[in-house]
């Protein structure tokens, strides 16, 4: 196993440098990003390519993490959230994400709302039984609602007290962007151009993953879906030939009060967690962002999560209890 050095400017959050393990069948690059263990699985590629791909993947994941994280003081998201009602001009990538967020808001009839992040100020999903006061939730709800935002590309105006949060899209978007970048990198290498069927890359950021195609010998990648009862134990094993998987759920973040489990998916119209939603929803789709959004929409449906997914003819796995 080797450690790959990435210069500090490209590693703004000071994550440990990525590692690379070369196995006979495929290589694995590993690093941390967006509070998740990240892996890049590569089959049919040389050691030099595996190094370049791992480094590129880490840099892209860290770039997106830094650009769209709530916790960074001087990125575009902070600029928007501290703008106190002034218009902020955004770049092309941010504009695309805002357009997407708007479309998801409309398609979900307002249930997917990137302004609902402020509710975290009253909800702390730490596994305890401390529910917030109803009045606190009601007050915070005043600062929630995409309809209160003025988004007219490339300018966004966020009223004082309101915030936007790309947490619901960010990780899946990073998976797709990273995979695209890695594929472009392989295709561009002058001496080692390869047909897409000769290699395969799988990008996995903490369970949200996408792959470029089956492995060169035609075999799929084997992926496990984590059980919500016993973390780190798989409840289902999937064979992936192509496409992406994303999971939404409360495996690691929830509150338990009077025997009722409150998942961390909040209903932006009430300020309270969506009732009777499954513990987790995993969806398979051509892209990770699409899979993640379908999973999120399903969770927002609560009891009807499975009916919704059936209706959309999605490939899904739902864990209820």
């Amino acid at each position, binding site marked *: 196993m080797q450690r790959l050095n990435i210069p500090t400017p490209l590693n703004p959050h000071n994550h440990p440098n990525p590692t690379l393990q070369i196995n006979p069948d495929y290589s694995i690059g590993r690093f941390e990003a967006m509070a998740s263990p990240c892996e890049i699985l590569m089959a049919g590629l040389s050691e030099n390519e595996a190094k370049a791909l791992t480094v590129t993947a880490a840099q892209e994941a860290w770039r997106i993490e830094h650009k769209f994280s709530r916790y960074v003081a001087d990125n575009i998201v902070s600029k928007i959230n501290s703008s106190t009602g002034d218009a902020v001009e955004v770049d092309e990538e941010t504009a*695309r*994400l805002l*357009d*997407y967020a708007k*479309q*998801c808001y409309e*398609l*979900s*009839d307002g*249930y997917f709302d990137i302004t609902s992040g402020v509710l975290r100020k009253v909800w702390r999903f730490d596994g305890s039984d401390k529910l917030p006061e109803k009045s606190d939730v009601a007050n915070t709800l005043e600062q929630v609602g995409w309809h209160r935002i003025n988004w007219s590309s490339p300018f966004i105006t966020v009223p004082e007290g309101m915030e936007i949060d790309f947490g619901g899209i960010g990780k899946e*978007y990073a998976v*797709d*962007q990273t995979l*695209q970048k890695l*594929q472009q990198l392989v295709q561009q290498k002058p001496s080692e*151009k*390869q*047909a897409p*069927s*000769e290699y395969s890359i799988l990008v996995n950021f903490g369970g949200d993953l996408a792959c470029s195609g089956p492995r060169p010998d035609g075999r799929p990648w084997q992926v496990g879906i984590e059980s919500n009862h016993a973390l780190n134990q798989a409840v289902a094993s999937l064979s992936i030939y*192509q*496409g*992406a998987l994303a999971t939404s759920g409360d495996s690691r973040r929830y509150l338990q009060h009077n025997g009722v489990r409150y998942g961390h998916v909040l209903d932006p119209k009430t300020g309270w967690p969506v009732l009777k939603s499954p513990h987790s929803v995993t969806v398979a*789709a*051509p*892209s990770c*962002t*699409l899979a993640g*959004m*379908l999973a999120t*929409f399903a969770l*927002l*449906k*609560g009891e*009807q999560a499975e*009916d*919704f997914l059936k*209706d*959309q*003819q*999605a490939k899904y796995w739902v864990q209820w209890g």
Partner: protein
Amino acid sequence: MQLKTNKQLSKTLAAATCTLLGSQAGLVEAQGEVGTWDVDTAVLYYAESDDRVQAAEPVISATRNYENDQKLNIKLVVDTLTGASPTGATPSDTVQTFTRPSGRGGSYEIKSGEQPLDDTFIDTRVALSTQWSSPINRDWAYSTGIYGSAEYDYISTGINGNILRYLNNKNTTLNAGMAISHDIITPEGDIPVPLSRMAIPNTPDFDQDFADSRDGSEETKDIIDLMFGVTQVINRRMIMQFNYSISLSDGYLTDPFKILSVIDDQAGANYGGNLTDADGNNIYLYENRPDSRMKHAFYWQTKYQLLNGDIIDGSYRLMVDDWGITSHTFDMTYRWQLGNDYLEPHVRYYMQSEADFYQRYITSTEYNNGAPTLTEASADYRLGDLDTWTLGLKYGHRLDNDQELSVRLEYYQQTSNGDSGIGKLTDQELYPDTSAIIVQLGYSF
């Protein structure tokens, strides 16, 4: 809570996600999924210049995918043809009157200098075929099917079987196939006696003359086709196919509606004009073709994918038969990938030499006062010396994993050549060019 509970939501969401991620965002064609139907539908419209043949052809082809890579395909084609088609007679400096093929519908007139075209050529054909294909084991597979088509005066039925053998990790595929078909022809007005005289319309003896020129109401034709082919993956970007095929037709191969003009080759005032009988009526004879035909064809095709994803597809076909026809077909398409769209220019060049028994007209010497010295003759331009060019462009748009729309526009130009006639006949245009446009709209899901 009310989310749009219909398929439309996930399609809209998928499209929005594509916009977010850019054109490569995984619109992968979802074909061949077990338990699903893959359906291709298209409508084709064909129109020749000068009010000649027009055709509209809707097609629907549905493939049902089963476990273990087995497939069942069902295809329905409806063909409606209208418009005028050359009869084989030559244009003349005088008015010509022809009997309708049915003998009942009266006659039609062709003005001086005009191409003799019969516009009663209206028909609708329905064809249904079904094909089953399945692997036998890792190295072998087979396919078999049946086919039937019917139109007002023609029925065709057939069966086929095909066996495939894979070698070299499926890089090489050998295949051998056979198809047999049996056609029944029952033309309106019955089968004409070969090289008999077309009865003159509006004459007292017409009915008798017409009846005399008829020989039964039904004829049949049998065809056996054998094909041997090899498909070879040359490298990661290129695949090639070679085929050799033999086709044997036996039975009634003549076109019951085609005629030949008899042209006077005696020196004198009428040299090169239509031969007339004692009553001054022009003489036309029904054509006759041999009752068997053996074709050999050799076909080569290559598909090559460029580094940017574009595909070039080129093919060549050589056909030689015992009617004396040799033909060459060169075909090339270039698929220009543009994200979820593609643009596909197409060019095709076809040339054939004329059949041994092809002749633009019969001379009076050959007519020999009603006892023709020939046994076979046809003036059907499709058996003559032809050169054709086709230029086309197809545009396709992939809507999502399942759906694709396409539109194709083609321009077809055909020139014929041959013996330029004698005497007066040389003033006539014996080989007019034909052009046609083809428009096809397709939708797959």
